[in-house]
C-alpha cells in the first residue's frame, strides 16, 4: 500500500514493519504496526497524521552527526540532528500534514551508575526537546529515562502507541 514517494517505505511482514537501530520506516498502510525493539539509550520517535493515517518511526542512536562527519559509512538515521528532519520530511512526502502530526518518543535510558559525562540517554532526550522546541513541534507523549529497555509499537489504524518493558505493556498515546 505504501507509495514510492518516500525512500523509507517498507512493506509489512505479518502486519509488522520492524525498524532496527539507526533505521526508520514510514507508511500509509492502516493495517500495519510499526515496531522497534530494544531501545537502550537510543530513542524511538513516532509521528502520525490521524486524518491521512500516515505515520513513521525513527530509531536514532546518538544526538549529533558530527561524530562521523566525513565518514563514508555515515548513516543519517543514526543521529537525532539528521534523522528527525528526515522522519518529518519522509512522512511529508507521503502526504502527512505537519500541523496534524502527533509526535511521541520513548527510550533514552542510562546504565546504572557512574555514567558520568557520557549521559547518552539524557543527551538524546535533551537534543530531541531542543529540536522540537526550535521547530515548534509539540511532543504529545513520551516515556524516557531510567535503566530499562523498551519496545515501541505504533498501530497505524489509529496512531495508538504502546511501550513494552520488563514484559509489561502500557499505552503511551492516547493518554
Amino acid at each position: 500500500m505504501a507509495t514510492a514517494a518516500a525512500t523509507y517505505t517498507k512493506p509489512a511482514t505479518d502486519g509488522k514493519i520492524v525498524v532496527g537501530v539507526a533505521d526508520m520506516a514510514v507508511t500509509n498502510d492502516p493495517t500495519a504496526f510499526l515496531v522497534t525493539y530494544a531501545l537502550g539509550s537510543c530513542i524511538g520517535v513516532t509521528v502520525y497524521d490521524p486524518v491521512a493515517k500516515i505515520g513513521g518511526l525513527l530509531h536514532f542512536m546518538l544526538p549529533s552527526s558530527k561524530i562521523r562527519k566525513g565518514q563514508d559509512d555515515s548513516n543519517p538515521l543514526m543521529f537525532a540532528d539528521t534523522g528527525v528532519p528526515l522522519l518529518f520530511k519522509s512522512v511529508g512526502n507521503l502526504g502527512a500534514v505537519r500541523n496534524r502530526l502527533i509526535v511521541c518518543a520513548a527510550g533514552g535510558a542510562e546504565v546504572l551508575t557512574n555514567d558520568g559525562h557520557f549521559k547518552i540517554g539524557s543527551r538524546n532526550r535533551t537534543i530531541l526537546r531542543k529540536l522540537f522546541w526550535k521547530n515548534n513541534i509539540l511532543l504529545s507523549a513520551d516515556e524516557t529515562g531510567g535503566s530499562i529497555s523498551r519496545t515501541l509499537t505504533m498501530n497505524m489504524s489509529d496512531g495508538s502507541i504502546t511501550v513494552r518493558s520488563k514484559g509489561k505493556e502500557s499505552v503511551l498515546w492516547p493518554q
Partner: protein
Amino acid sequence: MATVNELLDRVQDLPALPGPALRIINILNNPDTDLNEVERIIKTDEAIAMTVLRYANSARYGRPGRTFSLRESIARLGTKTLMKIALQCQICPMFSQTGTSYGLQLGAMQRGSLAGAIAAEEIARDLELEPELCFLGALLRDVGKIVLDMFATPEEMAEAASYSDTSASFLQIEEQVFGANHAEIGAELASRWNLPERIIEAIRRHHSPQPPGEEFNDPVCDVVHAADVICLWTGIATGFDGLQYPLAAHVRDGILGTRDRAEYYMTNMWARLTEAEAEMNADTAKGMTA
C-alpha cells in the same frame, strides 16, 4: 541457596563448546603452536570453510570479477583473521536459541555476542592490547545467560525484574532468584571447558572489572566491560535486564574516556556489525534485536 556448581550440575545438557573452537582457543593461548594448524582446522570443518569463503569473496576482502578458492582465501585472510572467523562461526550460533527468558527474541543474544566482540576488538587495537583475546572474551561474556535461560520462564524472569529495585544491578536480581549471576555461571562453565584463565576472568568480570592495582585487574576484562557497555547503550540484546548494570569508574575515565571516543566506538561497532552480518549471512536480522 544454590552455588554456581550446584546450579550447573542440575543442568542436563550443559552448553558445549565446539571442538574446532577449543582447538583455535588453544592456539590463541599458545604462541608457539604451529599456525598451519589453523589452516587444517578450517579445511576440515565445512561450516568454517564456507564462512571463510564468504569473507574472502565479500565486498571488504574480495575483488570484483574474481572468486577465490578456499586455498586462496586462507592465504589472503591471514591467520589472525582466520582464527577470528572460526571463533565467530563456532561460538555465535551457541547463542542463537537462547535468551527468551530474558524477554529477547531468538537471535538477539547471537547478535549481542558478535556486537560485543567487534567492539572489544576495536578497543583492544586502539590500546595495542590483544585484539583476538578481547574478541573471544566478549564473544563468550554472556554464556552464563544460556544456563540461566534454562531455569526460568519469561514470565518468572519478568516478574523478578518488575518487583526488584530498579536501581539494583541485575546481577543482584539473578543472585536473589537463582543463587548466582550469569557472569559467575559463565566463568564456571568456561572453567569446565578448560579455557584460558584470562578468558574465564573476562567472563566473570565483564560487569565488574577490578581497578588497576587490585588483584585480578586485567586490561582484557576492562576492554570486555567497555564493549559490553557500548552494547547496552546501543540497546543490543537488552531484555528484562535492560541497562541495569554499572559502568566501572576506571573504564569510564580510562578506556572510554571522552564522549567523542565512546560515541565513535558505538557508531563504529554498529557499522562493522551490520557489515559482518552481511558477510556471515547470519540469521540475525534487525527484527531480532530485542
